[in-house]
């Protein structure tokens, strides 16, 4: 794409995990029997009226504040009108010209290249139900009949709209990932892309490098993974460049990303695009978020991923580990507690982002389903740095701790993994090996370092692997007079 520049903006939808839905008392749950968490309000029955959920407003304020937005003291809801079977009122309660949060930003970093992405607005709306098409592969065309599940109808939905500040598919992916990390850190949503609790629409255009005017854009709707987001945008950029280079204009339209085809296909052209006929929702009164509410939200914000990464950098944690930690607040909290309990930064970083993450993933477990405590990591760390436990054995001990077999000391003892730290015992094992392999030792004396490994191995074997190899090799060298 040399000579061309891509311009991308992303609309991100996040379902909030509140106790109840946006405008009624129905619970927000995933995977319930169809149409079991509904009521007259979220079914859009005649006469039913919406009442806003304060917990959801608190949730969007947390997101908006974390994205450094201005918070509107007064904002209003509008009706967005369009007919669709899974939209029970055939209008969606949303926000239009006065969103609750606006003019924010988020910093992203792609391979050390940092950029600030503007956030145009963050607004509140309600989710729709879900259509289930029976027959013909689940697509609406050709389906024998369609069913609608309204459990999702009315779930609080936050829409985060970025400025067209993204310039590459990689940046777009990182932007999506950073939003996911931020929302997760805030604890307002589980942001599971595979379950649809976070999804993206991307607006994409290309222009000649150096041009100031934007090109004609297309919108790719309902992308539901970070990988798809990157691929869809990459494909769309390439497609648009192809169109322009063949002398044709890009047509403003809405497109659909097919993961199977690896391509975007036309959904609807601009002529077919809806006129949503927004108007003020007369069933609701303006929302008021006064200065003290705004201040309470600001004070209650947890440490955000960017701040965490910066703090870890200061602690000497490597970039990769810091990134993993910043993406997983619960694990990072464990790490922080372990370090303040005296654990070694490097070792505990390796353990929590390595063994621990693998352990959780393998068993599809959450951190709080394991038995590990910060003190365990501090103890384990002391055992390794004190030479009582090898780095390899430490990983096995950690596995036992996670399984609930006891403290690191107990697990190591029970599994006979403790190293010999008694200098006399190691000395006699070294002496025995020197006697047994006099030739090799002679070579070492002559300065042939190649045999060192062999001799250390022999000592380790003699001690059942419980000697500290570093200590053994030092001892051998000093005996060889090196």
């Amino acid at each position, binding site marked *: 794409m040399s000579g061309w520049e891509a311009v991308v903006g992303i609309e991100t939808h996040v379902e909030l995990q509140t106790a109840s839905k946006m405008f009624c008392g129905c619970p927000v749950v995933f995977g319930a029997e169809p149409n079991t968490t509904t009521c007259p309000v979220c079914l*859009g029955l005649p006469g039913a*009226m919406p009442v806003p959920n304060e917990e959801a407003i608190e949730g969007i304020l947390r997101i908006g504040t974390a994205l450094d937005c201005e918070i509107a003291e007064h904002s209003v809801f509008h009706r967005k*009108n369009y007919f669709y*079977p899974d939209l*029970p*009122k055939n209008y969606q309660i949303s926000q239009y010209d006065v969103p609750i949060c606006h003019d924010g930003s988020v910093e992203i970093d792609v391979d050390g290249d940092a950029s600030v992405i503007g956030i145009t607005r963050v607004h509140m709306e309600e989710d729709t139900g879900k259509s289930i098409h029976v027959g013909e592969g689940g697509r609406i065309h050709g389906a024998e009949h369609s069913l*609608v599940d309204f459990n999702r109808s009315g779930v609080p939905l936050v829409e985060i709209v970025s400025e067209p500040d993204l310039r590459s598919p990689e940046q777009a992916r990182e932007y999506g990932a950073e939003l996911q990390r931020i929302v997760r850190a805030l604890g307002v949503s589980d942001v599971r892309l595979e379950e649809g609790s976070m999804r993206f629409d991307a607006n994409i255009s290309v222009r000649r490098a150096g041009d100031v005017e934007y090109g004609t854009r297309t919108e790719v709707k309902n992308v539901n993974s970070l990988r798809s987001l990157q691929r869809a945008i990459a494909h769309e950029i390439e497609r648009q460049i192809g169109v322009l280079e063949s002398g044709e204009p890009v047509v403003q339209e809405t497109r659909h990303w097919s993961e199977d085809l690896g391509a975007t296909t036309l959904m609807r052209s601009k002529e077919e695009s809806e006129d949503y006929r927004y*108007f003020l929702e*007369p069933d609701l009164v303006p929302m008021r978020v006064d200065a003290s509410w705004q201040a309470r939200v600001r004070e209650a914000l947890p440490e955000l991923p960017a701040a965490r990464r910066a703090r870890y950098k200061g602690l000497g944690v490597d970039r990769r580990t810091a990134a993993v930690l910043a993406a997983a607040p619960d694990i990072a909290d464990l790490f922080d507690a372990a370090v303040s309990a005296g654990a070694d930064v490097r070792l505990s970083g390796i353990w929590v982002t390595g063994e621990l993450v693998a352990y959780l993933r393998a068993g599809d477990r959450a951190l709080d389903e394991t038995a590990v405590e910060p003190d365990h990591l501090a103890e384990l760390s002391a055992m390794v740095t004190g030479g009582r436990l090898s780095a390899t054995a430490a990983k096995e001990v950690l596995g036992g701790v996670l399984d609930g077999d006891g403290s690191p000391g107990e697990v190591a003892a029970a599994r006979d993994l403790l190293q010999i730290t008694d200098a006399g015992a190691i000395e006699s094992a070294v002496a025995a090996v020197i006697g047994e392999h006099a030739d090799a030792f002679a070579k070492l004396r002559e300065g042939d370092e190649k045999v060192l490994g062999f001799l250390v191995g022999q000592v380790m074997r003699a001690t059942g692997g419980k000697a500290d190899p570093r200590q053994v090799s030092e001892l051998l060298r000093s005996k060889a007079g090196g």
Partner: protein
Amino acid sequence: MRGAEAADAAFAAGEVQGPLQGIPVALKDNMCTRGMPTTCSSKILDGYEPPYDATVAARLRAGGAVIVGKTNLDEFAMGSSTENSAYGPTFNPWDPATVPGGSSGGSAAAVAAGTALVALGSDTGGSIRQPASLCGIVGMKPTYGLVSRYGLIAFASSLDQIGPMTRTVADAVALLETVAGFDPLDATSYRGEVPSFGRSLEAGVAGLRIGVVTELTSEGIDSQVLGAVTSMLDDLAEAGADISEVSLPSTTYGLPAYYLIAPAECSANLARFDGVRYGLRVEGETTEEMMARTRAEGFGPEVVRRVLLGTYALSAGYYDAFYGRALRVRTLIRRDFERAYEDVDVLVSPTSPTTAFAVGERAADPLAMYYSDVCTIPSNLTGDPGISVPIGVDDAGLPIGFQVMAPALEEERLFRVAAEVERLAAFSARPALATSEVVAS
């Protein structure tokens, strides 16, 4: 009847549930009643039984009232004659060749004829007051938000308000006190304490400043209606009120503003009737076709007209010229009223420019029909309370109503003046078709 038996039993047991204990109440059929059909007089809701009670229905039941039936209306409350009903028109008990007004014509006729002692109606542009006027009863639209709209099938949400339709002002007070008050299910409902509205019914009007709205007592008002209103003004002056004329210039634009705002809101409110979940469904090849056919079949012509008008008024490119401009007019009218209330305590006018008109007379002329609400629409646009009290009959023996309007939440003052108008008018005529002595209370 089961409700009535329960009320009898409660009486016998000495239980006191409220002032409406055992009282037969009729509900306009746009208020949801659990397990009782609620149709909005539309084919599209044929056979629909709501799974829940509207807040007003629940409060009536809790107060011991007996819901004796649901009353006819213009489909989705769109009309001023109760002729636009999928289930046939309602006639005026004073003369069945005339209409009872609308859209709460069924409730008005029921109370006038005595088939219900009191009734609830809903008023979006005059739908309580205008039929009350045409049927010779008291009809009152409370301040917007005073009565919960939860369970009222919306026509135009920013204008709709439920209110009492009764034989006397005192009954209207009792019925309103039973249903008014904050409802956590209606975000627009008034959160403050609801005062007792009937404290000043005997206080008279001495020293009260009454403003007569110039724009609503001139051109276009029937001379006999105007004559009755003028004579009542003389009586009020005699009773000690300070009568003056007040001009509200923006009210001239009330009618066109209303006929953009109400249809715009209704175009969204009625979008949910699509055959997907309840009510009528006319099958089609695709979902879109099913929806379109259901709506074409289910809605009557007046509903279709307003949905189209509203859709157009909100469309890109037309919003500012139509809906946006109507909202600005609404603000101007509010200001006119606020300014007027700096100088007077209440405003008065005829309720309807004419008495009951002949069945079919305005059916083919929507604009003539729309003009029926010219005097009542301003209170809906401002959200202020208004009441119609019968003050006499015209040469044909048809009732004439007198409208009193007051600032928001000044229901007590409104009822005080209405009670004096009621005393002065001593209106005792009864419609030809009234049922016997059953309701002579």
